[in-house]
């Protein structure tokens, strides 16, 4: 069960992931078509990339009146049959991350499909803010990081913005 994991500490907001995503998925070079979106939180001085989390109980699935959203049985990816979407955008509202994106050319709501297992945003992120890893692995590296924090003072832990997850 691999997911896109985000390290907002490392994101500098350059927007390369957005351009690459829009190019790969929509053939357009424009952030509006991107399925990953960087939110600049000026009040907290932080940039947070937001992307579909592939929830195990996806609210978007419940809300789709056309029943187009389904969970892929093997990996649990949340996918959609875009070609039949009526564009009511209910899933966009239902999603707690607002990770569903309306594509004005297809007139359909789309979301991250992890590029079939090799996400372009992750491979093109120059800052190491995006990872494609197993949920177990994510939890483990977080634990590792926390243990390091508990052991030594934060300044010595070398937790610069380049610290990997």
């Amino acid at each position, binding site marked *: 069960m691999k997911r896109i994991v985000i390290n907002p500490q490392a994101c*500098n*907001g*350059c*927007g*390369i992931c957005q*351009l*690459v995503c*829009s*190019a*790969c998925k*929509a*053939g*357009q*070079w*424009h*952030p*509006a*078509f991107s399925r990953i979106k960087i939110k600049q939180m000026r009040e907290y*001085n*932080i*940039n947070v990339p937001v992307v579909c989390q592939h929830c195990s109980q996806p609210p978007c699935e419940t809300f789709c009146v056309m029943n187009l959203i389904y969970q892929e049985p093997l990996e649990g990816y949340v996918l959609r049959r875009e070609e039949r979407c009526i564009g009511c955008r209910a899933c966009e509202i239902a999603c707690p991350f607002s990770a569903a994106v309306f594509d*004005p050319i297809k007139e359909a709501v789309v979301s991250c499909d992890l590029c079939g297992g090799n996400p372009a945003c992750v491979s*093109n992120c*120059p*800052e190491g803010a995006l990872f494609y890893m197993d949920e177990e692995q994510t939890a483990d590296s977080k634990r590792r990081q926390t243990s390091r924090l508990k052991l030594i003072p934060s300044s010595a832990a070398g937790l*610069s*913005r380049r610290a990997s997850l």
Partner: protein
Amino acid sequence: MKDYPGKILEIDLSHRSISLKDIEAEMLKQYLGGIGFNARILYDQIPAGADPLGEDNVLAFAAGTLVGTPFPTASRTEASAKSPLSGQFGTSNSGAFFGLQMKTAGYDVILVKGQSSDPVYIAVEDDKIQILDAAFLWGRECWETVDILEQKHYGAEIALIGPAGENLVRFASIENGRYDGWGRSGLGAVMGSKKLKAITIKGSRGRKVHNHTDLLDASRKGQQLIKSASSYMAFTEYGTLNASITYGKNKAISAHNFTLGTLPNWKEIGGRQIVDKYGSRHVACQSCIIACGHWAEIKEGKYAGVKVKDLEITPVMSFGATVGLGTEAIIKASELCQRYGVDMVSAGGVLGFAIELFQKGILSQEEVGYELDFGDDEAAFKLLEQIVNRKGIGDLLAEGTKRAAEQIEQGERYAIHIKGMEIPMIDPRGRWSTWTLGMLTNIRGGDHLRCRNPVENLRYNDRDEDYMKERFGFKQSMYDRLDMPEEQKSKAINLENDTVDIPEMSKWAEDLINLFNSVGICIRPPVMEKVGPGIIAEAVRAYIGLDITPAELAQSSERAWNLIKLFNLREGEEADASKFPRRFYEEEIDGEKLDESKIQAVLERYYQVRGWDSQSGRPEAQTLRRLNLMWASSETRDSDEENCD
């Protein structure tokens, strides 16, 4: 290549008319984009001798060719017009996200002509272009205006002016959103004279890409190149502030209006450790992998609550060194400049000039109304406010140091400018290099950003007797990896003597920076060190399918540089204007002063290298023929003859 999607959007504010023009393939190949387009268009459209603040001046925004791609640092947009400060080609470059929106709305160039009688702003959303009433925005400071316009035009990028631009302060800037801006050359005053408060732009269409895979490959290659640069890690951590202590040590900062060379506590005021103290997070422009900007916040004390994207060398030098303020006051000063919409370098220069006049007793307390002293932040901010609103003595100072000095008796000695533009931060008496020669040869006046040695070695500061050389000081591998034609490389760098030939390197550096400004990438040192015409040609080929060789790229940027020179000559640039202020030749700092005749010799060598007349600095006929600029030369001659008549 037949149907290049970029358009030229022409907005005439006098007649309230809007027109669209295609960009011809020939123009694309010869001028690329960005400053190249601006040079070509403004040379045609601004009549000789036009009043910079009059109806004839044309303001042009041009996004670089590669903007809108993930090519590293491709985010820059060039704004140009005839400068009210220097009376010559005024131009300035800014990053952030404005260029991306321009490109995706379908425009490569936006031209604003004529003058409106009432305050207006232009709202562009793809094909919908509106000229709207801006009475409710006029008089508001920049951040407030951005807040209002962001609500009205969700998701749009905004170029705007603040009170300084409205009041035609000659060094007003155009702000690019809240924190960035087209600072130098006083373009804000041009916008103010057109009664244009803002341009909001939002695009929703992607550009067609010639070859997706090649473009991604070129971008990734570019990223790897930049990441392998020797200065990359330092720049991602501390941004431009890296050089500040070195220049302080070399006694080459603009301390107290270029009188001291350095300040005793410079390390605490302007060293890069202030990033650790006040900075919190790195911020990038579109597609940038360096992210040299920082969010800065002052948590306690007099200026508690100030929050800006800052900690760059420019405000630190112009307010910390020239005006002598402390670190927190510097951050506050850059907030004020962003809110007023005023160029930080010129603002610092004018404040330093006024304070020195006051100290020397040339400006009296009656004239100013209060006491001025280096390091007094409250007085400095009061004076800045007066300048921006043109109140009291501020009205005179708002004309810039050159014009103010002409009005003040004995003032000229203390006015530090070249061709009317205030000199930024570095003092050539302390460190002579390609960079400092660049201030004389710069096409926009006394400025440091159009010429910089891509392999500048700040560790060394030994002056060659004839000013022709600086130390190279790197290993052979650095030399080998430079993206530069071999012939040019061997002329500019002498490995045996370990020196860089300043005139040769100046030409290359200026053309390289002009190329960067044409294709819209950034001139931060890691990029300058590694990226050259080779990789740019690859990216341009993949993006727009333009078949162009690295040599042709280099030539097209040289062409634009020469055309701008012709523009300046047409506006009456004189050969002896390329001189440092008298102070640099006459007053010593740490036993060093400049030798006028030797600098003249360097300048003459530079003219020869460029193929210009070594006395007058006018491009020779054969240079123009080589660059395909003969059409411009005959025009220049005609207008000269008219002037003689």
